[in-house]
């Protein structure tokens, strides 16, 4: 039994914005909309040191998200109409002392909660605590072999075994309690990691998560991580072979749309941010993670360690920044790094605003994880 029942579709390479037309219409009328999804971290710290980590480009003033801060934040989110909160962003949230409480509190408030993690600190006991409250849990694992894992993710080789065991435990608990949570694995594919695509897809076959997603690596507008987008061409055969390892209960999904975009954007305006904002593990509220660094201070809106989120959201400052991104004075093709989290939402809303597509209520059953656009 998996959490993905027959009538729900798991959209891993696309956007679910079409399922939130009420909010799209309010946005078109110029109303102040609450984000549908907020991606955030509970800390900037991480116990890993992955080679491709974007968080190294996101340095900003550190502040500590305490239990009171996160509880206030979650309550504000529920109050203004946020639907889903994912703990991914720029730090490893599972190592925050408030992690488990935040998951539970969010879920009790009716928010859909999700986690992206390296999975190391999720012992079976902690999994028992959090899995019933999660919509999805995704483990970042960018290699299928111990030594390469240690090299790519900057950790001891033994940690590979621990993470694999934790994934087995996740699936055991999910099946035992018939939980609706989706458990996934994610590989950030750099062109130089091609040797790990098939070993990881095979590892997934034995660990049996619901899916393995293979995605591109983002880079800054100046290409500071040195991602060679043309280098992905040579991986296409391996990526297709990995997809072929899918079966009824284990899907291998390649984010083709982003890989094939080669880091390019079809749009200049950023309309997605008001629908989907990001918070740093320092508490910083910014339109997106690519703008966390102090370099982009002009886009920084506030900090939940200092100001209640509902007040930040209702402030002129919030709407000044969101309006700048949506205005002709901003050009995402020139001023942004590659392929941000909001990319698919941006693409869709931009095409809608240009009259190229008409967003209409999608047919059929709502997809899984609908609150994570």
């Amino acid at each position, binding site marked *: 039994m998996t959490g993905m029942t027959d009538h729900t579709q798991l959209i891993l390479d696309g956007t679910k914005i079409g399922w939130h037309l009420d909010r799209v219409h309010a946005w078109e009328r110029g109303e102040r909309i609450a984000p549908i999804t907020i991606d955030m971290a509970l800390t900037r*710290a991480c116990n890993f040191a992955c*080679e491709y980590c974007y968080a190294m480009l996101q340095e900003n003033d550190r502040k500590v998200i305490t239990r009171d801060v996160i509880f206030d934040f979650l309550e504000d989110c529920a109050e203004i109409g946020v639907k889903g909160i994912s703990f991914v962003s720029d730090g490893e949230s599972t190592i925050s002392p408030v992690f488990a409480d935040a998951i539970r509190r969010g879920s009790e408030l*009716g928010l859909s909660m999700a986690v992206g993690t390296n999975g190391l600190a999720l012992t079976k006991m902690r999994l028992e605590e959090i899995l019933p409250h999660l919509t999805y849990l995704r483990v970042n694992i960018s290699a299928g072999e111990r030594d390469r894992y240690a090299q790519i993710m900057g950790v001891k080789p033994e940690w590979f075994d621990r993470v694999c065991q934790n994934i087995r435990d996740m699936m055991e608990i999910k099946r035992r309690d018939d939980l609706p949570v989706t458990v996934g694995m994610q590989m950030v594919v750099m062109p130089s990691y091609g040797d790990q695509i098939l070993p990881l897809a095979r590892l997934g076959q034995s660990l049996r998560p619901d899916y393995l997603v293979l995605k591109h690596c983002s880079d800054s507008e100046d290409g500071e991580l040195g991602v060679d987008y043309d280098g992905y061409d040579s991986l296409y055969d391996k990526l297709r072979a990995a997809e072929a390892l899918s079966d009824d209960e284990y899907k291998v999904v390649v984010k083709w749309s982003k890989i094939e975009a080669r880091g390019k954007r079809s749009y200049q305006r950023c309309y997605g941010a008001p629908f989907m904002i990001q918070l740093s593990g320092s508490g910083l509220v910014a339109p997106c993670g690519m703008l966390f660094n102090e370099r982009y201070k002009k886009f920084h809106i506030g900090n939940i360690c200092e100001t209640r989120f509902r007040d930040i959201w209702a402030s002129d400052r919030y709407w000044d920044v969101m309006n700048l991104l949506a205005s002709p004075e901003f050009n995402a093709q020139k001023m942004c790094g590659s392929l941000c989290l909001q990319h698919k939402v941006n693409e869709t809303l931009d095409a809608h605003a240009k009259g190229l597509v008409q967003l209409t209520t999608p047919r059929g059953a709502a997809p899984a994880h609908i609150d994570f656009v």
Partner: protein
Amino acid sequence: MLEPALHHTLVAPSEVLDYEQLYADYQTGLVDRLRGFGAAAECLSLWVPDEDPATSLRNLWDAAAAAGERDIAVYLGPTTTASLDGDEVLGTAARFGVATLTHGRTGWLVEVQELRAAAPVAERRAVAPRARAIVHGVTTTPAIETSAGAIHPAYVDAIARATADVQHDGVLSADAGELMLRVEDHGSTLSLVVDRETHVIRRAAFTDAPHEGVMERFCALVEGVPILDAADHGVARLELSLREHRAHRPVAGIVTPRSADPCFARPQALIRAALADYRAQTGFADWISTHDAGPAAPWRAMSPADREAAVRTVLDTFVAAHDGRPGAVELVAVEIDVRLVLRLDEALLSDGGPRLVFELEQALRDAIDPRLEVVLEEIRDRNRKRRLAVVE
């Protein structure tokens, strides 16, 4: 430091962990260390403390067991024991192995031997109730109302000025190599002369517009712009150019031509019809506009020294207006021709915050060139290991 008396009680574990020190180190590390973060003790690489000491200790024994430790001894100082019940601590510890708790003068020593993962129990620790009632489902605040049929006040003056100086009314004719387009919507027409090679609009004209000033400004803005970009972004530029003050937004949320005022519907319909006609007549099939006009000729023509001087003048005026010390904002570099990297004095920045940088950018754009961008100096990852792993 451990109490000497407690040291004598130790039997099996070779090392006694000082819980309060571990907890403090962990908290500091969360702020000071970015990558490769972990608890100070090797055996606790899986440990995540909790603000609640009872949960924190439970996590500690669980982490040690999961890491394959056989036994562990922890000293709990007075600050920690003050909020704990000894029997409960011992009961929790006993779930993970053979547990003993020794009371010292100021603290406790808890030893667990033959560590094992605790059998799963329903961990449904209640989250402390909160005082505030939650109101669900308030998702929007309404946009500012305008009276039906009237142009929003944000645009009235600029439209009036454009109406008083109409230069783009009428029809056009095309020269060799150019293509003439003429489209109509609700009785208004838009004529464009487009260069077939570059797809750039050479000339634009209109007739019978409900708001002449709107179409006048639109025609002026699209001349010299590729037709695809004019269709995709021309009306948004029109909206911004007609708004009297940038900050005087016609709606509470996001301004788009559609949300701003119905007066933008006509140029939008006309330019889209013109693009469709152009595609039909020429087979033009591009869909992605990457046009960026870049900075205007005066900025492009300036030498680096002239640019620096022009920027300096604006910065000095801005700093003076904000009571900053002379030189409180420095120009560090100019990247990709238009991106100004600035360094701001801490005092000025902490007073004005991000809004100040935002305003500074607007001041530079207004005074020098609308294509200028402002960024501050980057803060780099403080973790040396991480930084060595990338190309600097």
